[in-house]
């Protein structure tokens, strides 16, 4: 199981927790797993998220691998100018 930290604005959608555990071996698995557990997360995730894996911010690549030791943060999708 992988522990996923969520930004506190999402707490109301996950029964007040600030981190959720999902079964996952890639970033894509994490996002799918989160929506399966908490369908209310589908909206914010569809709107666009980046996933920080051990400090590295993954903006797109769903195939990025993760392990049970990975530090995972969900963040809103990054855009630049």
């Amino acid at each position, binding site marked *: 199981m992988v522990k996923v930290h969520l930004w506190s604005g999402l707490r109301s959608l996950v029964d007040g927790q600030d981190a959720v555990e999902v079964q996952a071996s890639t970033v894509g698995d994490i996002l799918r797993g989160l929506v399966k557990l908490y369908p209310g997360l589908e909206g914010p995730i569809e709107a666009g998220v980046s996933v920080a894996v051990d400090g590295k911010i*993954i903006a797109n690549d769903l195939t990025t691998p993760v392990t049970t030791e990975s530090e995972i943060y969900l963040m809103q999708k990054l855009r630049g100018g």
Partner: protein
Amino acid sequence: MALDDTKTKDFKFVGTRPERPDGVDKVTGRAKFGADMTAPGMLHGAILRSPHAHARILSIDTSKAEALKGVKAVVTRADFSTNPTFGPGLTGEPWNVLENVMAGEKALYDGHAVAAVAATSALIARDALKLIDVTYEVLDHVTDVDKAMAEGAPVIREGAADKSVPAGMHPNVVRYHDSGHGDVEAGFAEADLVLENSFKTEATHQGYIEPHACLGSLGNDGKGELWCTTQGHWYAQKMCAALLGLETSQLRVTASEIGGGFGGKTTVFIEPVALALSRKANKPVKIVMSRSEVFRATGPTASTSMDIKIGMKKDGTITAASGVFRLQGGAFPGAPCEFTAMCAFAPYALENVHQIGYDVMSNRPKQAAYRAPGSPMAAFAVESVIDDLCKELGLDPIDVRLKNASHKGTKASFGPRFDDIGLVETLEAAKAHEHYNTPLKEGQGRGISCGFWFNHGGETAVSLALSEDGTAQISVGTPDIGGSRASMALMAAEELGIPYEHIRCTVADTATLGYNEISHGSRVTYASGLATIKAAKDAVNKLCKRAAQKWGIPEDAVKWEDGCAVPSGANAGDFDPLPLAKITANMGATGGPIVGHFEATPEGAGVSFATHIVDAEVDHETGKTKIVRYTVVQDAGKAIHPTYVEGQFQGGAAQGIGWALNEEYIYGDDGRLQNAGFLDYRIPLASDLPMIDTVIVEVANPGHPYGVRGVGETSICPPLAAIANAVSAAAGVRMRELPMSPPRIVAALKAAQDG
């Protein structure tokens, strides 16, 4: 993505300063920008825009315009797709873009496009607009961010809020961000001094000198061509296709040279309109925006209202920090409230931190990115408070920042732990710099600020084709907004081992390369650069294979050195080095054309930090500020072409100076933009600025083969705060609203005197 071979020294080409490939074209006027293209039979398009900040569109009568001699087509919202072919139906960003490109039921801001015509001359098109009759029902409007959130404010659009917005907020509040860690209340209790203050910034425009321009051609067979000035032609391709009901691959988009973008050309405004007109008229249609259209109807920044609270101990340790950031992004969701919130305290290693952001709609144009969207405003507020804390506690501003600085392993204010970063290096370089150690003259004030930006990777495809004469052609998909073609050629030269001058880098069109994300997020030198290096390595592998074949030895017995294939060791065989040109001369006969390519979504873009030092003088009578001295210190990871890196540092600083001192969107009580031109929207002139000194710090980014970090955006993060700190010191009064224009400074001085 794991990078197996990185290089951090012994560069032969990278780090040198050759001439840019588009230099001669640009100094002779030969370079083709958006408005420089024509096509046989071309028509000229013009757009009718709402004069009201908020109004219901009751009817549009185009009959008189259609009857005018020379008018060949008129379009309104009805001529666009009701079912974009990508994205979740009509919802989400494609719908927002469509609603912005051509109004539907309501005009949402002064300048909102309502209809468009194509005619045989620009003057006839302009005259035809006056013949279109629009009946409006004017509604109440709101342009201020705090007023737009308040009870009773006019509603821009019902039901646009996403599920994260707390219950009970006004419908204009559409998105919400809340992040942080620790216990800020406990942290404030521990502090020796807690300062709490509010700050405001007004909207600004990227101010690119080249207005948006395009030439579109669309047949009734669904096949089209589009020439436009853009930071992202694949994005323009997919968005135009969606808005016009086309298949993406049937629309071919070519990016012109771009006369400045800075984030403002990362989306579409007139391109779908040109294509819609072209389809109806069955002729190519050219549209060029006027300067006032650019100000009224493209994508300025958000305006902000912010509350900051920071607690500090006598020894300079920050014990807690919290911020609330309210941003309005026009009549659509998208104000970068989450970036403002996440960047605000990022330079500091904090145990207790909490930030909240609100994205609010108002009757203004749809905001777009401006360099590091959201970050400069946050820095303005936070670094001003840190400056006040330092002054009250009698502490040196750089020492305090060093004491609290984020470094590798620090838990960022927005959550994850930082990897290799260069903040401390920029602070130390600033502290040691001669500027910081030069005493100020009487009446001068000095300001320091740090700044942070994420930087971005994104989809990237590069192709590197070798010519028979041994020279090379790189095709990239990222429009060149900062001199990147030169940097690509330098990186390819490093891998191929042939001189920079033998490599030409071109920006390909959407039909000739795989998908490329927009040139934004400081991603080009990082992502297109990484892809160029990998494509060159791919070409080198193929070249080695040909040499191996020629010599009759195994492939792994050949390596590449100084532009030649050589046996990898004494055992491999005794062969003279085989130069690239010799291999390519008959490549057709030894296996075919040799092309290296690489397609991926690189994810190792490193974040970057900067520290700026500013000295300023304020004329107490007129309120005019003079920037006396400016030094930019920023971490570039690895400067591929140092001169262009310096250029980015200087350009970002100059824009920050304008934003801090003069630039603002001024709305009248009628909700109309009052200063839609360069006379009254005052950007810095040559006579306003001093020379801008630069220091390039290099803390390698492990996610790029040569350590590159993007540089284009971070340079705009510190200036607002650094200048505010310098001006506040010189004026003797803390300025909390931007811009710090002469009237504001005079008023602040008077208020301080009176009270």
